[in-house]
């Protein structure tokens, strides 16, 4: 097991290296760079100095070597070009907790509610509940999160139904716990698509399990429906759910862009997209690496989880 994890982590390093390299060269290939807007209207002497400062007068390869050297020696990609002195790490410290809390709340609400609804739909197949959940999920998944957010802001915040703050995020002592009223709308808005997605996934997966022979065996043992679902169906139908969880976790990082924007939440998603749009290479590289690390680690965790849920899969036993 330990050996397997070490091997996977080594593989991850190679992947990360490739990602960083690809990102670097792709970004460098685009005309214009982070300095473009900064220096566009400055006199030539100053332009030259600034370009020199950030090394943009050098060939791409040399810049790449410098960047990688910096990475190895200092362990980071350097400071932001757009915001002098700022580093990714500093922003990470400030913005990650926000994103993590938002993500956790969204995932907790979205995934658990989705799974619960999926179980209900699967168990009461053909009933009104099933149809209601199906139609509801379809609507939620077909609605852009932007529209959902705007609707929530319009109808849940102005005191007609609920009086909730429409913008902002808890800070300081309340960063992790507290300030709940700020988090309600963004959490709901962001979790809608998860509720929809997971309820459908759970239902399908449950039905698949229910149609398996072993469910028949369990029924033949005289177990009640509840016991069958609890002991036999759920565990088996969780296997596909667990395989998609990491992509949810990884996707939520940049995925909550709209939510962060509409509710003015200072999270990673917005920060990262802004860096991409501004070609702030050090930040983009750091962000991409960070994002990739999260993806790879969640994938590793999934594999391990997978092994726990499905005993047929042996972790580390070859491919």
């Amino acid at each position: 097991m330990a050996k397997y994890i070490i091997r996977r982590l080594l593989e991850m390093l190679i992947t990360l290296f490739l990602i960083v390299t690809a990102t670097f060269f792709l970004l460098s290939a685009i005309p214009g760079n982070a300095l473009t807007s900064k220096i566009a209207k400055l006199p030539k002497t100053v332009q030259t100095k600034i370009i020199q400062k950030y090394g943009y007068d050098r060939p791409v390869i040399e810049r790449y070597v410098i960047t990688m050297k910096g990475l190895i020696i200092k362990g980071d990609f350097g400071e932001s070009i757009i915001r002098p002195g700022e580093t990714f790490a500093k922003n990470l410290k400030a913005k990650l907790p926000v994103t993590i809390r938002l993500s956790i709340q969204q995932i907790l609400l979205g995934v658990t509610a989705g799974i619960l609804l999926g179980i209900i739909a699967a168990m009461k197949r053909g009933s009104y509940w099933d149809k209601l959940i199906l139609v509801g999920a379809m609507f939620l998944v077909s609605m852009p999160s932007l529209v959902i957010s705007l609707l929530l802001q319009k109808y849940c915040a102005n005191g007609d139904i609920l009086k909730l703050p429409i913008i902002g995020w808890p800070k300081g002592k309340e960063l992790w716990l507290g300030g709940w009223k700020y988090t309600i709308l963004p959490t709901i808005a962001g979790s809608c698509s998860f509720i929809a997605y997971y309820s459908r996934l759970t239902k399908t997966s449950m039905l698949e399990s229910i149609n398996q022979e072993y469910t028949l065996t369990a029924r033949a043992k005289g177990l009640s429906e509840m016991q069958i679902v609890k002991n036999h169906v759920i565990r088996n139908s969780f296997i596909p759910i667990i395989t998609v969880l990491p992509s949810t976790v990884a996707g939520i990082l940049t995925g909550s862009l709209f939510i962060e924007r509409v509710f003015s939440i200072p999270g990673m998603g917005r920060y990262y997209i802004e860096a991409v749009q501004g070609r702030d290479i050090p930040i983009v590289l750091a962000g991409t690496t960070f994002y990739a690390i999260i993806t790879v680690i969640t994938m590793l965790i999934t594999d391990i989880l997978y092994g726990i849920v499905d005993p047929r899969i042996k972790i580390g036993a070859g491919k």
Partner: protein
Amino acid sequence: MNSLVDKRFELADQSRFDADEVVRPNISYWQDAWRRLKKNKLALLSMAVLIILFVMSMIGPGLSGQNYTTLTPEIKNLPPDSTYWLGTDYLGRDLFSRLWKGLRFSIFVATVAATLKVVIGCIYGAVMAYLGGFVDDVMMRIVEVLNSIPYLIVTLIILVVLGNGYLPLLFALCITNWTSTARMVRGQILKLRESEYIMASSALGASTTRVIAKHLIPNTLSLIILDMATSIPHIIFDETILSFLGIGLQPPAFSLGTLLSAGQEAMAFYPAHLLFPSLLLCLLVLAFNILGDGLRDALDPQLRD
């Protein structure tokens, strides 16, 4: 009496019937799938909706006979009336016509990008599965790397290198999406290759082409169709997001995404400008989703009895 008895208990003329004829009509997989789909009212309804939407996207822009491309600010932001059925937008263009024209582009982008994605994914996946070994490893690593680079960067780069317009956008949308198809196809082919009936048919001397044509393709096809049906809504959303970020389609071309983002800017005063594109987008995605669900139910051989 004898004659009567004789007739009843005479041996029946065996040539009159064919023992096989009694067999329940041997419904092929696709007929069966089609039959299942036909039973699914919701899926049929969504198919009808899609057809209507498609037809409207073709004829809709000309239907009201109003101008929808020239800017005539004198008549901007008109409320719906008998001339402008849904009113005019912030630059005096007929919203009704624009809606369908935008829909046309969204449908076009989604279907073409989904097709492209599937084709690229299939070829890539099949090559991976077929060649295996080192090539497979390298190609898988490429997929992994591509998956880990946020699609926004890749899209941005493609749009930059290839410029604005339909084709680069299509290309960008499919290039960021094909990896999932490739993985799926690879997995499916590897699974099938191991399966007994394929081994049996190769053992019986079937040529590779025959194995591919008779077994691999039909057995992968249902998955591919499903993949395509589920990617279309995704691609529609992706296109919307790009338009929203301002790096998608550039005026004068427009799509539902462009209309949506313009509508959002005008939301507070002309909610209709956001409402109609949103509704149409929802309807389109909803119909694709329901149809996709119906297809999955219809194509999943596990549920076949």
